[in-house]
């Protein structure tokens, strides 16, 4: 059953799709307005998912499960900010270096939030395991990992600020003039540590946690989040592929190197195959929307509902 929440998300998404098509039709693909409209609607949808997470966290009375719902809410808020700033960057404040700097920081903070969710989920999984196995000694290593992750984000921000101050606002895509290659590699490792830690922990730890946990609620939650992560990554790669063809749209891309990878892949594909620009824009939009729906399913699955509604006779009946 789709559920009222997903129906609302689908309605907002459909509205966004229509607006996107209208703006493309009137202003052209890659125009400021068209670039603004798609991510903005995805941002709204993500914000709604955050609302669902907060709402559910308020009725989950066990602290660990409450933190999981809050984790999803924070992840959704982070995602919506990524989309909003992406839209703003592409449409309103294009080229403003300070804004680019702030936008560059947001994904790292978002990764920290994701790490929070991974941490809470791992602990919830341990609780759901009948013999309470501590997968990969997570209880022991989580605090050092937290310190490394947060430290990397702070150091990464300082490095980003340094690049900004020295006029190289593109950050990790290339070393600033005064930096040696070895130092740049070290900096790149430091900057990428949050991704490695968060995605590594998520990809390696959580599948095992899900398998060990015998709690169907937690399993469904993790599976839906996994689907969200997969669709989101695919959406971003697709976006990068699209951006490679439409440089004017490249303003919104949280991961510059994904775009580079996309370009490498594209080099092997005949350009005529992917020339349908409007379709590619719509496909990317649809994929991000699908990712948002998966995230919504993930948070909804934390609170298994028995659907009922008041009947004419004043009693509650199953819907």
């Amino acid at each position, binding site marked *: 059953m789709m559920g009222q929440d997903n129906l609302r998300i689908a309605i907002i998404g459909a509205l966004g799709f229509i607006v996107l098509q209208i703006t493309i039709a009137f202003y052209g693909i890659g125009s400021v307005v068209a670039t603004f409209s798609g991510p903005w609607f995805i941002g709204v949808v993500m914000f709604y998912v955050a609302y669902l997470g907060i709402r559910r966290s308020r*009725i989950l009375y*066990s*602290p660990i499960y409450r933190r999981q719902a809050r984790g999803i809410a924070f992840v959704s808020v982070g995602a919506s900010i990524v989309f909003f700033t992406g839209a703003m960057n592409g449409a309103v404040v294009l080229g403003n270096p300070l804004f680019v700097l702030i936008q560059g920081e947001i994904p790292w903070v978002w990764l920290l939030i994701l790490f929070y969710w991974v941490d809470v989920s791992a602990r919830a999984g341990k609780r759901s395991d*009948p013999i309470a196995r501590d997968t990969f000694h997570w209880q022991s290593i989580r605090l050092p990992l937290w310190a490394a992750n947060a430290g990397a984000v702070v150091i990464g921000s300082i490095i980003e600020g340094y690049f900004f101050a020295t006029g190289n606002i593109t950050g990790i895509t290339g070393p600033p003039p005064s930096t040696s290659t070895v130092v740049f590699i070290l900096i790149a490792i430091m900057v990428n540590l949050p991704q490695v830690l968060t995605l590594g922990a998520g990809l390696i730890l959580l599948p095992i946690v899900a398998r060990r946990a015998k*709690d169907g*609620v937690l399993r469904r939650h993790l599976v839906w989040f996994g689907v969200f992560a997969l669709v989101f990554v695919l959406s971003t790669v697709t976006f990068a592929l699209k951006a490679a063809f439409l440089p004017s749209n490249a303003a919104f891309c949280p991961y510059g190197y994904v775009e580079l990878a996309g370009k490498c892949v594209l080099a092997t594909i005949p350009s005529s195959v992917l020339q349908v620009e409007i379709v590619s824009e719509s496909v990317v939009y649809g994929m991000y929307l699908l990712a948002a729906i998966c995230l919504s399913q993930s948070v909804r699955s*934390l609170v*298994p509902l028995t659907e009922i509604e*008041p009947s004419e*006779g004043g009693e509650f009946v199953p819907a």
Partner: protein
Amino acid sequence: MPSTGISALDQIIGGKGYPDKSAILIIGPPGIGKEALGYYFMKSGMASGDFCLYATRLPVSEVLHDGKAFGWDDPERKCFWIAREGGDSNLDLRNLAGIHEVLRETLSGSKNRRVRIVLDFASPLLVLYPTDIVYSFLNQILGEIKKHDAVLLATVELGMHNEQAMVSLQTLFDGFLEMRYYGIGLNIVPMLRMGKMRGTTPSTGYFRFGFVNGEITVEPAEGAMRAEKPTGESELLPTVEGETEIDLGQRTDLVTVFNYLVSSFIDDYATSRYPAEKSGWRSRGSIIESTKLSKASFYGALGKYGPLMGELMSRGLVETCFFPGERGRGGEIVKLRIAYEKASVRALVQNSLKGDEGK
């Protein structure tokens, strides 16, 4: 009777708390607050000087950390802990005999004090062992409870075990309390209901509950959702003099359904010898199949009732009930039967029964 630690819950159960020498099962999905009922139970027990025993698959520190959010703590370790870590005795789920022995010895050493036990590892046991072994183990534990002045509260996860295991546990325990999340329109409402409670007459129906600043609130659900009647009332309700006429008007479909439900009740009660509270319940599917009426009469759009069903309900001719163990269209199955508590309907049934006896 030991208080639950929640005055509103005491009232729902019958006024004083859980029955003496009883074992109560709390069923609910993860995170809904099953353990919180255990914390309140322990808190109340420690305040009244009872011997409190907490048997948990978690480390003591984790339980106390959660308990603090509900206003329960045990800094002086007044409670006896059987826990995976940090307890007075270690819990090893792979050694059921050992757990039984520790519980038996601890109960023997309670020195005639009333004992309160909270046990949170019923679900892991059901995952690790076949149902019959868990049943046998719990049966032994419950046997110890009966020998002492003890009350046990056990929690079990909803949606984690098969139906057979859940039914077995519900049969084994003296009472059970079910907690669920219900979606009512746009709202999510946590509700609880009393499944059964030995020796008491608990309030039927569903109760909203919530935790605010460590305090629990329990209040009857708006709309008075009907629950199954408590077991133990197998006698027919007494005949009430007065209104006995039932006006079904000219609608033949209404008459058909009502007559079918009356005969179903009589079949169950008089022929199959079901207790009155269990008699006459039929799903909409079986009514449609037997009466050959259209589905649209019973099922409306968007999960609402159809016009005929609505008419039966608005006239007060039928009552509805959820059957949690069974699944229907998009949710738990709802069954209906004649509104047996209504004097005119009851009189009609009893007249029919007398008529059958006369034959």
